[in-house]
């Protein structure tokens, strides 16, 4: 049965599909070529160093999201649980490990490649969570590849020069270890080039997200989580920049014409927390029906870094890696959120309490209540998960969201 797609389609999406295909085919080729090396990296990890040293970089969290979006996670998670990973541990990690153990990956169907490329090196940063360290260790042992990481100070208030210097030192050590292990030499000019490209893509990404400040908003959170792929997976490449220039042009045209991502937008919502990948489409359609736009999110903004001034690439990497939202303390997070609500003219805030990712869940230490009290803004906390659909009730959540919009309407009346 043909179904109507309830979204205002972004035309650049076709180009994005091509880019993604090229990216994965290239990774697959690299994994099968003994002359080329593949490094795995966390999504806000030091990937620029790896690119500058000639590694093809693969981001396993993307695979976790793909498993979730394709509603496959729950098939693979039990396998990881059976070998000792907690049933409530990160569902990206569990589903990814489970899918490897069971020898099936959606990358086979989507891009026609064998699966995730085998790593020659695994690099993490615990600026987002400690789970990545354990996740990478599984593959390190299995594939006999070295696992190296950066462990920055976490839950920071103000970021001090000392903290930046400390992380910069860790990055230097990381470079040394990689140089020794692979008999390579990092070219700092090349690193500066990669970081410049990375920062440029990130700036463009922020401009893309900012088109949602327009009324009506030119793109929604549900578009954002798809179009953010290049700023993560192709960070440090010209391809990502070219893509965001095209996308930004399209969205700017939308703003000029007054075209919204949700036609006749009435309410503007902020999404705090991870996407619920398996239910993205249903949620997107629900907001569409309710004429509510999810105009901004913490998640999509996580890759919108400050610009690189061209001076010290390692300093920029160290600073941006610890300045990110997930690595900050409650007062800094709260200030950031309040600024975002103001910037995007938000009517109501939804916190996603993701069962298996406490790191991206900010409703567990009173923040939702504090914001409700301080700003008199409607706040809703919904229970779910980024990937494991067993922690999500569609009927309950949809009722919750509808009631939330009814509450906003009543307050605006």
């Amino acid at each position, binding site marked *: 049965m043909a179904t*109507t797609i309830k979204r205002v389609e972004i035309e650049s999406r076709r180009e994005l599909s091509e880019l993604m295909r090229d990216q994965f085919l290239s990774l697959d080729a690299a994994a099968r070529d003994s002359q080329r090396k593949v490094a795995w990296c966390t999504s806000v990890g030091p990937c620029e160093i790896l690119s500058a040293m000639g590694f093809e970089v693969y981001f396993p969290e993307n695979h976790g999201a793909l498993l979730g979006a394709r509603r496959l996670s729950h098939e693979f998670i039990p396998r990881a649980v059976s070998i000792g990973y907690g049933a409530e541990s990160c569902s990206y990690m569990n589903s990814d490990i489970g899918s490897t153990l069971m020898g099936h990956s959606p990358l086979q169907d989507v891009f026609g490649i064998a699966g995730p490329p085998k790593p020659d090196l695994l690099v993490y940063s615990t600026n987002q969570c400690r789970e990545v360290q354990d996740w990478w260790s599984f593959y390190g042992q299995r594939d006999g590849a070295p696992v190296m990481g950066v462990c920055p100070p976490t839950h920071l208030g103000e970021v001090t020069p000392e903290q930046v210097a400390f992380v910069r030192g860790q990055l230097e050590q990381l470079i040394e270890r990689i140089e020794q292990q692979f008999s390579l030499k990092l070219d700092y000019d090349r690193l500066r080039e990669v970081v410049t490209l990375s920062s440029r893509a990130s700036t463009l990404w922020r401009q893309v997200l900012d088109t949602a400040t327009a009324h009506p908003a030119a793109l929604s959170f549900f578009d954002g989580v798809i179009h953010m792929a290049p700023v993560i997976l192709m960070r440090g490449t010209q391809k990502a920049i070219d893509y965001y220039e095209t996308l930004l042009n399209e969205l700017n045209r939308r703003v000029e014409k007054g075209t919204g991502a949700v036609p006749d937008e009435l309410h503007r919502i902020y999404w705090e927390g991870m996407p619920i990948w398996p239910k993205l489409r249903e949620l997107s*359609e629900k907001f569409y029906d*309710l004429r509510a736009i999810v105009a901004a999110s913490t998640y999509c903004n996580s890759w919108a870094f400050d610009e690189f001034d061209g001076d010290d690439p390692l300093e920029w990497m160290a600073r941006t890696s610890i300045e990110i939202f997930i690595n900050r303390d409650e007062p800094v997070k709260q200030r950031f959120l309040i600024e975002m609500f103001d910037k995007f003219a938000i009517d109501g805030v939804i916190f996603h309490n993701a069962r298996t990712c406490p790191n991206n869940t900010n409703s567990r230490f009173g923040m939702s209540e504090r914001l*409700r009290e301080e700003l008199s803004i409607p706040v809703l906390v919904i229970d779910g998960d980024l990937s494991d659909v067993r922690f999500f009730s569609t009927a309950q959540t949809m*009722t919750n969201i509808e*009631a939330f919009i009814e509450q906003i309407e009543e*307050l605006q*009346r």
Partner: protein
Amino acid sequence: MSEALYVGVDVGSSATKCVIIDETATLVGHHVNHSGFDYADAVDMSIRRALRQAEGTLEDITRCVATGYGREHVKMADRQVTEITCHARGAREWYPQVRTIIDIGGQDTKVIRLSEEGRMVDYRMNAKCAAGTGTFLESTAFKLGLSLSALDELAMASSEQAVLNSYCTVFAGTEVIERIKAGQRREDISMGLFRSIAARISEMLSARSDAVAVTGGVAAHCRAMVKALEEMLETEVWLPPMPQHAGAYGAALLAASQEDTQRRSTSHVTHR
């Protein structure tokens, strides 16, 4: 009879309720029946029976608002509104000064907070599990071979301050057995179950108030539930005349209200 009638239908997971009011907002008909397997049938039956009591016909229905988990099955509905808004509206009609409404349903429990002007300022639904819901009571009563009303009778005869610690339905079952083995009285164990629900609900109250009403099927059938809530919240809890019909009543009032003429397109998402 040919005056305008306004219909509210609340299709819950276990029961379907219908309330009909007339132009003067007087409740002229109501009915409750099991939702069963076929929601459309259940809806049909509850509307027909309520209409009969109201001495009206289908032609007399001016507007209909559907609510509840199965609200999509009310084909004649002009609008769907969530049970949260409807319970708040129904309870407010009975108690204009109410500030907190606790609705204990079969599969979920909601706590709704209203401002002084009666606007919804906050609401909470229980997390995705049976803790704090009618299902928790029903399944534990079933394990003990009791009906819900027998469980209520026993609980009302309790003299001890026993609380069951488990929120989880499965763990509560085990805890009940442990307590029976330890020689605790049936009456006190039964009351402990209601206190367990009250404790779970108290976690959902972001602010305390003295103007609390309880709605839903559990409150309608179990005096012990109201008692447990009163103890836990240390305040009198109002039980409206038709607690189980509060959502349908609210829906009927919304159907009749002028402010509610705007229609909203309904979702085509299939709930699973």
